[in-house]
């Protein structure tokens, strides 16, 4: 459903497994009234995002893959 797909993008999430090139990361995102985890890849290929970082979902690939980038540049 396109609505679901659209609703995922732009959501905020937290990294629970390091996201980076060559890694399969994990983020947990609030969605559908709960919190679900998704497999995460960096949206820009060279980023490495450590666990605990706040991220924004840039792209959603159903069923459970998202591309994320750090929410705040630090």
């Amino acid at each position: 459903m396109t609505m679901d797909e659209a609703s995922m993008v732009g959501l905020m999430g937290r990294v629970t497994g390091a996201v980076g090139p060559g890694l399969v990361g994990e983020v947990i995102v609030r969605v559908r009234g709960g919190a679900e985890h998704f497999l995460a890849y960096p949206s820009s290929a060279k980023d490495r995002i450590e666990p605990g970082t706040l991220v924004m979902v840039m792209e959603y690939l159903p069923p459970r893959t998202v591309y994320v980038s750090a929410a705040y540049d630090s």
Partner: protein
Amino acid sequence: MFIGMIAGAAVGAVLVLIGLFKLMWRVAEPNEALIISGSKHKMEGLEAGMGFRIVTGRGTLVLPGMQAVRKLSLDLNQTELSVDCVTHQGIPLKIRGVVIFKVGDDFVSIANAARRFLDQQKRVSERVHNVFAGHLRSIVGGLTVEDMIRDRDKLTGQTRAACGTEMEKLGLIVDSLQIHEIEDPTGYIKNLAMPHAAAVQRDARIAQAEANRLATEAEQQAAARMAEATRDSEILQAGYQAERDNAAAKAQQAGPLAEAAAKQEVVVQETRVAELVAARREQQLQTDVRKPADAKAYEKRTLAEAERDARISAAQAKAKETELAAAAEATATQVTGEAEAAARQAKGLAAAEATRAKGLAEAEGIKARAAALAENQEAVIAQQLAEQWPEIVQAGASAFGNVDNMVVLNGADGMADMFAKALTMGGTGLGLARQLLSSMNQNAVPAGGSAGVNGVPVEKVQVDRES
């Protein structure tokens, strides 16, 4: 009646409607998804071509007979893993773990899962076990034992990398993968831990020893301080006790001292009184006893002296008297003695004269006998024998005197015979005596002359003279 029937029919109709609705209305529970298939229906939340409808968390109208409703559980599942693996270093391990997974909550995951597991929901665990067993082998093969033990993040990362996409295909999400146990038949892990354990043990022992040392030092210091404090305290206590004893003794002595002083005063006074009494008594005795006694003694002495003088005089007089009497007696005795002596002398002389006269007479007799003997010896001897016969016979009989029993075998004749023989022996003795006499006479001729002059022995008469 009619109205009643209408009301009844209406109620029945309502009941029928409710029953129909119950049959057609299905509600999805929070942990399940309804998969509705059959006939044409609104493609809710899914792209076209999916061919079924997914309802979660609410009710939906289902036409019985036209549509099929199946439930897909969205609950958590778990699979026990028990896998023999070989690590990167080639060490065989047996790993026990658990995978906790569920069907994803999004419609895509539900659709994927529904297509794969709807009829075999009970066997999902088995499938997942197979998937994970293979993947775990590959994961462990890419890790070392040290990594597995120390770097859990790496293990989960690898697991996610290997299984995440695959599970995605199945519409499942892995909530958790846990390694419970790593069985290590070669003892690698134990040996790995050994140096560290030994070091830790060593450090622990060192630390313990050090701690013991420090504790002992502290204890000993504390004990020494305690002993010091005890000593000081005891010294102080002893000092205070001594002071207290001193004071107490003084206090105790104060009473007796005062008492003694008072007593002493009393005794002094009493002594003085006694002295006075004694002095008075002495005075009294002087007057009462001594003076009279002196007087009496003087009297007695004087009397005794007088008596003594009198007795001396008497004794002297008596002595004189006795002396005079003795002298007189002596004189008398002398006179008497002299007289007695003279008398005795006269008596003695008279006796001597008488004896002499007798001796002369005897000598005359002997001379006459000797003359007769010279003339007729045998007659004289016979006469003498006859004179002496009884003695001779007695002497002869004395031979039988010691005989207790005499047996005379010849009777009376024998007896006479024996006496005759004894008498004959006397006769033989007579002859022997005659010989003897003759020999005596021959030998005694010179001696006979002197014996003839002084034939009579002179008897000396002792005369005691008293001086």
